[in-house]
């Protein structure tokens, strides 16, 4: 089953690789991955969608939480959460269907971001499933190019973030 994992991590070189390494080492293929800085520029928020066997889901989260650079890894599939994605579609369409394409885009609350004689470039956001439908509809009008952002997620429950305070270490000399 697809699992959505949200991670808060230190924005450091190699941190992304450590997280994806936990999945790659176990042979899991990542469906989507997004990462960006948070309000605190020293931290990044990452959302990973990955197909993990149910019985191993907790183990994967635990292994991620063990990583020094990870402050918190949580399973979004188990808590109330909003999951959203963005898609850019370039659709070629004939003069006759241009109006219909715009109407369809409106139904999906999508926005035309570029228009040319060849067709349109349209952006849409929404739940990943909804975007699948949108892409299908656009393809019925003509040739398309599609770029998807991958899912981002936000928990709807306030999660307590427990951080380790500085530790003073004994000096030998």
């Amino acid at each position: 089953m697809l699992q959505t994992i949200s991670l808060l991590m230190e924005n450091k070189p190699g941190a992304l690789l450590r997280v994806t390494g936990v999945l790659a080492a176990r042979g899991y293929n990542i469906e989507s991955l997004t990462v960006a800085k948070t309000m605190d520029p020293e931290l990044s928020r990452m959302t990973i969608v990955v197909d993990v066997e149910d019985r191993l889901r907790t183990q994967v989260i635990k292994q991620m939480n063990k990583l020094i650079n990870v402050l918190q890894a949580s399973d979004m599939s188990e808590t109330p959460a909003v999951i959203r994605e963005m898609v850019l579609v370039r659709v070629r369409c004939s003069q006759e269907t241009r109006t219909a394409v715009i109407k369809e885009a409106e139904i999906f609350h999508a926005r035309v971001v570029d228009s040319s004689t060849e067709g349109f470039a349209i952006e849409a956001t929404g739940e990943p499933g909804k975007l699948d439908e949108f892409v299908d509809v656009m393809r019925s009008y003509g040739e398309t190019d599609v770029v998807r952002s991958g899912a981002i997620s936000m928990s709807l429950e306030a999660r307590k973030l427990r951080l380790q305070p500085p530790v003073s270490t004994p000096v030998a000399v």
Partner: protein
Amino acid sequence: MHTEMDGKLMTGAEILLECLTREGVECFFGYPGGVTLPFYDALYDHHIRHILVRHEENAAFAAEGYARATGKVGVCCATSGPGATNLVTGLVDAMMDSIPLVAITGQVHSKLIGSDAFQEADTFGITRSCTKHNFMVKNVQELPQIIKEAFYIAASGRPGPVLVDIPKDVFQARSHYVPVESVHLPGYKVFTEGHAGQIRRAAQLIWEAEKPLVYAGGGIIAANASAELTELVETANLPAVCTLMALGSLSSGHPNFISMPGMHGSYAANMALTDCDLLIALGTRFDDRVTGSLNTFAKHARVIHVDIDPAEIGKNRIPDIPIVGDVKRVLQKLIKNLQELEAESKAVKAPARTTWHKQIKVWKAERPYDCPHSDTEIKPQHLMEEIDRLSGGQAIVCSDVGQHQMWAAQLIRFNEPRLWINSGGLGSMGFGMPSALGAQMARPDKLVFSISGDGGFQMSLSELATIASHALPIKIIVMNNGVLGMVRQWQTLFYNNRLSAITLDCFPDAEKLAAAYGFKGRTIDKPWELASALLEAVNEPGPYLLNVKVTPDENVYPMVPAGGAIYDMVFCPKEPVGV
């Protein structure tokens, strides 16, 4: 704390040495090269002892031997590229056995990184998955902080290896050295105390159990919790098995000690695991070599699992009482709880507990480990028995990997922790001799045996030079059966005796080999020579190489075929199998 070093303008190399000194490093193992030249130049004037090994892999193994013998962080050092890649096996080995290690590697000049420069390798990338954490130092100012964090991460929580990759220009750059006295790792959580309620519940379960069993793992040794383990076992009169990684954590001579469980564990240990109604798993990870098939492992038992690593809890077996914490702290509290409940609880299950202890005694008597002797040949078990006699549970025994490792684990007693040193999780051949080198460096007061097969011995043969040059009085015992014994055993038992690529002919003359390095050596093949030859080795003030030719076709028993139930043991047949 302030010393004359504070604020002084120093090179990165000098700062690194100062940081190592402050971490209490007295000696480390390494091999210099192009990019570590500035570091070795600074070392020229420094008091820290550097042991020049003959291959970087052995630097890592020696540092492990040092760490395993003392509990301190072992340190090794290698240059960029091949030096760093040669460390990898040792890093994985330390990772698998949770051994605190800091590896310092040189890297090419920052400006050359990514240009396929001479001796450049992506050490940071290569070692990411085989370390607990790794660092690349970008500038000299961050060096003291990174070294502090490296040692802290290596030694705290579940210990493990940490690698610090340092470009050549960082060694050369100058900076005002400011000592670091704290670490701030917001994402690094170490759980030590254990949940008080769960510990209370565990104490109740222990008194309620009719057939309780302690299953102690390497975590006991890592946590220096041997005294607590002993007290636990005595407080509630619990029988105990110690895994390969935990031998010595409960003295082999303790009446409650059963033996090692698992694939080559004893009949009594495996039967006790199978039949117990409460399994008290302490600092252990339900490794496949211990559990065999998980579905049949301790099937009727409720499980208390104490481990410092939350990811180990429920990984292989879902416990009834999970306790995340430092096993030393948890055991102290558990013992206290047991004592509080003793008056009201102890008598309730006392008769059942007596029966349980009797049953274990019966199993022990029924099938002890095989220890055959012969009038004409030296049996490998006989060799271990003689080493045991000389050691009396006191010597450090560093083992390689294979049949000899299993016989040594079965037949040599260890009265204390940190005497039995072996590559448990990874099973790295070649580990024995370099780890003995590290252990003897750490414990010059101890008698150290290095026991290898003729295969593993030849994998790290180069360290004879290091041992000779430091005149380390290691007793290097080669259990020589002329084959890769464990592979041969599996080919015999599971591959129709089709013996493929296992013959090790052309073994060097041990006497001449040792003499070539300037110390004594000898080959023996008669059982009546064994005791006197070992005694001669032990009495020799310097190193000694004893090549013991043993029966070539002996198998290790009992044996649980891989993936089988641990109560389904194969025992030594009356007639030899195969050959």
